[in-house]
């Protein structure tokens, strides 16, 4: 299974495995990663799965949809590398992905 590392705002790292086809958000919930709430169940409708994706992964994680862009407009601490991780689907090409969890989720 491909591996993803979640890094909390305080630097703590959580390496986990997420099966192909699941979203990174679902992977976080299944592994009880603190700071990812996923209130809307992955409908890109709440902004509680906000992460930062390092530059080298940006191509492979795909682009923001319009809805994702709209939701991120209202998130706290939005940056150029912000993503809603329910919109990133796991596949072998994402093996080794590193995401930083945003400070607070609404």
């Amino acid at each position: 299974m491909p591996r993803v590392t979640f890094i909390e705002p305080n630097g703590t790292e959580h390496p986990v495995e997420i099966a192909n086809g699941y979203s990174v958000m679902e992977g976080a919930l299944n592994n009880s990663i603190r700071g990812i709430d996923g209130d809307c169940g992955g409908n890109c409708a709440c902004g509680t799965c906000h992460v930062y994706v390092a530059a080298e992964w940006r191509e492979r994680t795909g682009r923001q949809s319009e809805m994702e862009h709209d939701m991120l407009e209202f998130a706290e601490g939005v940056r150029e590398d912000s993503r809603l991780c329910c919109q990133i689907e796991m596949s072998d090409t994402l093996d080794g992905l590193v995401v930083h969890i945003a400070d607070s989720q609404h």
Partner: protein
Amino acid sequence: MATAFKQIEDEAIEMARSVAYSMPIEDIDMTDSARFVDNTHWAFFERLRKEAPVHYCANGRFGPFWSVTRYKDIMAVDTNHAVFSSEAHLGGITAKDQEDDFILPMFIAMDQPKHDVQRKAVSPIVAPANLAVLEVLIRERAQKIFDNLPINEPFDWVDRVSIELTTQMLATLFDFPWEDRRKLTYWSDVTTIDVSAPDAKMTRDEQRAILIECLTYFTGLWNARVNAAPAGDLISMMAHNPSMRDMQPMEYLGNLLLLIVGGNDTTRNSITGGLLFLNENPGEYQKLRDNPALIESMVPEIVRYQTPLAHMRRTALQDTILGGQHIKKGDRVVMWYVSGNRDETEIENADAFIIDRARPRQHLSFGFGIHRCVGNRLAEMQLKIVWEEILKRWPMIEVIEPPVRVKSAFVKGYERMMVRIPG
């Protein structure tokens, strides 16, 4: 003993069930506030979810409308802001249209792009750093309220606790003159009165006159703050924000009322509801006493179970298909959060109040999509403080009579709930 009254309510709910299942389905009108004041709407929604999840009512109290009652369909409408508009001039966000000659523009009832700009102007009030400041203030004030409650003597929880706490919070957000703070409660209540109801407490003209008084009062505050240095309260934030400082008076009033009602009724009724649900479910109350850490997951469960706003409404901007039904451009579409939150296909054991659910935040009470509640974390924080402070003081607060509910198909809440703290 404390739950004896629940039996009476349960019997009424069962009686409503036979009515709900025997009447012609096309005659069901969920905008009828009578079903909310006596808490008998449940079986009607249950039937709609099963038999007509996207349901057309031709003769609704406020005109023809679609009822959307399943969790998934509600999510589909709430997240499709390109097709389902919130715009005030098309009717706005409640089943009842805004009145053409008294339109109150407010960003909850705006579409993109204006909505986005105004929402961003006020959302810093609930940014994490500001929430941390507010938490200290809110706790101090809550402690004072609790320390002054009578022991072994019946009193109205709604008035003494729920209203007082939320009004104080609101006064803090606005930096509103402290001694006048009950005006906020009053304006909030006046705003949500359905003056078209046969037994309405006031006329349309009286209602408008009072709201204009509210505007006049707040204009005084605005004038003082626009000339002062920018501060962290909501009025100063609006007065100094480039996208809001040129608002017309009615738009200022609209946005004020959004914040007053949004921040007031909803949290107030969650504070009352929580105590009611624990009384109705003594096993859950025991779990909480045994493990106060459950407050964390109980708070979102209270908000789900209460669903303080029963619905939000949209207007279709184009023909579309939803749940197999053909919705026409201009149609009124009502998302019944109160029903979606009891949808068994999405939430396990949805009719039960369970304070230690694994995914308690999976509910519709705050809406979803670009209009999702700005104040959700603030509301949760208040409820958390309330329950932490209660558990520090008393193992039990008894509800001693059935609560008196609000007669509205929009604000789902309580007028009065008599309780006693055993001493």
